[in-house]
């Protein structure tokens, strides 16, 4: 019993309250109110998912038909009746060479998802085999002080996801390390706040693309002599710079708006400046700081895709772009798979931040 209570609290805490209702359906302790809850929180969302997939399917089908008709029409006007019939037969047979290129249907996307996973398994196996094969040579090379031979095959979809996550975390940490201390400092001083306000207001709305170009200009020169991974450096720095503003503004605001009562208490007790900051000001602005960090992480994840796409750095963004350039028959559905993966990971990241935010907040109102 006790365990289930803590489970309830944890799920509610993470904003995943619907899981509780789902659980009570299986344990069978549903009353009338619970049943209504069940309808609202479980049945309706699931129905809406099916509705979404249904609409998507029909939309994809009609787009497919438009594209197919256009192809047949084109064959008819350019090459005559015979070619048109051949095209019709070809499309009906499902031959890869003449499929209309348009929005993929849910079923196609699901197929692509499975093929991407298969692909990942093949590549992982390949990698493992490669590691086994080169283990002896690499050990020898390391002993001789040479660089080991690394696997240079194409990364799988899962590898791309991991790379993206790595980049987003590096960018997020950079944003945290820059924005929180600066936010605290400018939050403490009214003069400083008004003196840097213009800077924040001007740089905050700058597009990720421009940040990327700026970072590119600087990093390109700075990494000239080193063989470090400059694409990764450029993309994580750009992500950090784009996303740090929310944290900066929120931290400054949180620090500047500490309850006057707390400040009075600190004054009466004559707390020193360090104690005042660490015992009073920082804890009291933590909720706002974390709200900022949560926004920062979601912005970071959103701009990451665009930045990877432009910076040619590996990750989901370049995966999407390569697939688009590739133009293979399943490219479109792979892009849609990537879209769902991006959305899903973004959602998970947000939930993680919400959980942390709720842990550090001293007031009981939970965030949304």
């Amino acid at each position, binding site marked *: 019993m006790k365990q289930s209570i803590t489970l309830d609290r944890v799920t509610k805490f993470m904003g995943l309250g619907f899981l509780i209702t789902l659980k009570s359906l299986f344990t069978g302790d549903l009353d009338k109110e619970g049943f209504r809850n069940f309808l609202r929180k479980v049945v309706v969302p699931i129905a809406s998912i099916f509705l979404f997939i249904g609409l998507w399917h029909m939309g994809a089908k009609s787009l497919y038909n438009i594209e197919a008709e256009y192809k047949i029409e084109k064959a008819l006007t350019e090459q005559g009746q015979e070619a048109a019939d051949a095209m019709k037969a070809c499309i009906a047979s499902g031959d890869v060479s003449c499929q209309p290129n348009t929005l993929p249907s849910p079923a196609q996307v699901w197929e692509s998802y499975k093929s991407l996973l298969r692909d990942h398994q093949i590549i992982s196996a390949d990698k493992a085999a490669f590691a086994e094969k080169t283990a002896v040579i690499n050990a020898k090379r390391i002993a001789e002080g040479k660089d080991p031979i690394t696997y240079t095959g194409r990364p799988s979809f899962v590898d791309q996801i991991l790379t993206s996550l790595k980049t987003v975390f590096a960018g997020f940490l950079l944003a945290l390390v820059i924005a929180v201390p600066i936010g605290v400092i400018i939050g403490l001083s009214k003069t400083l706040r008004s003196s840097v306000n213009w800077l924040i207001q001007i740089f905050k709305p700058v597009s990720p693309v421009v940040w990327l170009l700026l970072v590119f200009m600087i990093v390109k020169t700075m990494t000239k002599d080193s063989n470090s991974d400059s694409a990764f450096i450029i993309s994580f720095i750009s992500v950090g710079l784009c996303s740090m503003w929310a944290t900066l503004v929120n931290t400054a605001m949180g620090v500047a708006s500490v309850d006057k009562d707390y400040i009075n*208490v600190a*004054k*009466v*007790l*004559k707390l020193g400046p360090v104690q005042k900051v660490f015992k009073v000001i920082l804890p009291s602005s933590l909720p706002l700081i974390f709200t900022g960090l949560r926004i920062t992480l979601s912005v970071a994840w959103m701009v990451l895709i665009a930045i990877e796409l432009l910076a040619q750095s590996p990750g989901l963004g370049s995966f999407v772009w390569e697939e688009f350039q590739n133009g293979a028959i399943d490219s479109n559905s792979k892009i849609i798979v990537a879209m769902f993966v991006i959305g899903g990971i973004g959602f998970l990241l947000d939930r993680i931040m919400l959980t942390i935010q709720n842990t550090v907040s*001293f007031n009981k109102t939970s965030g949304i």
Partner: protein
Amino acid sequence: MITNTEHTDIVTENGIAFHEDVMLDLKHLKKVYPTPKGDYVVLEDLNLQIMKEEFVTIIGHSGCGKTTMLSMIAGLNEISGGNISVLGHHIKGPGPDRGVIFQAPSLMPWMTSLQNVMLGVNQVFPHATKAQRTDIAKYYLQKVGLEDAFHKKASDLSQGMQQRVGIARAFAIKPKVLLLDEPFGMLDSLTRGELQDILIEIWNKEKITAVMITHDVDEAIFLADRVVMMTSGPKAKIGDILNIDFERPRTRKAVLEHDDYYKYRKHLIDFLEH
């Protein structure tokens, strides 16, 4: 106006002459708030002496400048004219020699009640060992009846409980003067009574000079040695001072049954209704 004139033992310190028994001395105190329409004088030429081990309550209409005066004594509000001295020393800004119990409990909600009290104790007794400081904090939390809530977060406590921690925090730093700014104003009358009892019980032991603002006539009489009545602002000053001659320690019952009680009460209400 000042009733205690029989003290002749004048001591001079820093060029200021004061009675040895005077703890807190307000001289020609003035507070001016500049407004676009010219200066707004809240307090003018306010003189008040508060003796050692005296409990003074201050009563007056809302907006008459009671809180302004108290926060000036606390050092949280600038003095526009005149001066305030504690034991003959002019005050400069806030400090732990003047403990404050605020109207809102003003606890750090992310700290436990013990940590809240320790925040002050650590500051005032930096040379004591950690165990000694913890003992001091725990002692006062026990005194206010929170022995079971040492490790509860302040945000999880009720308003009344939070104000108890506020009382413990103020006494634990052993101030020379205790300033109370309507500390029970936000509480229901039952809790208020409880907290008055707790406050007076600790005060009877510690005998810290106390200045308390209140709106409650009964509270003013029950707690005080003297009730200071302030005239309505602007340019508020002291209108009248009433000596409350009940013996200490007092019980609420004894006070309520005392013949003089209604005389005192009438005096205060007559003043306030003018």
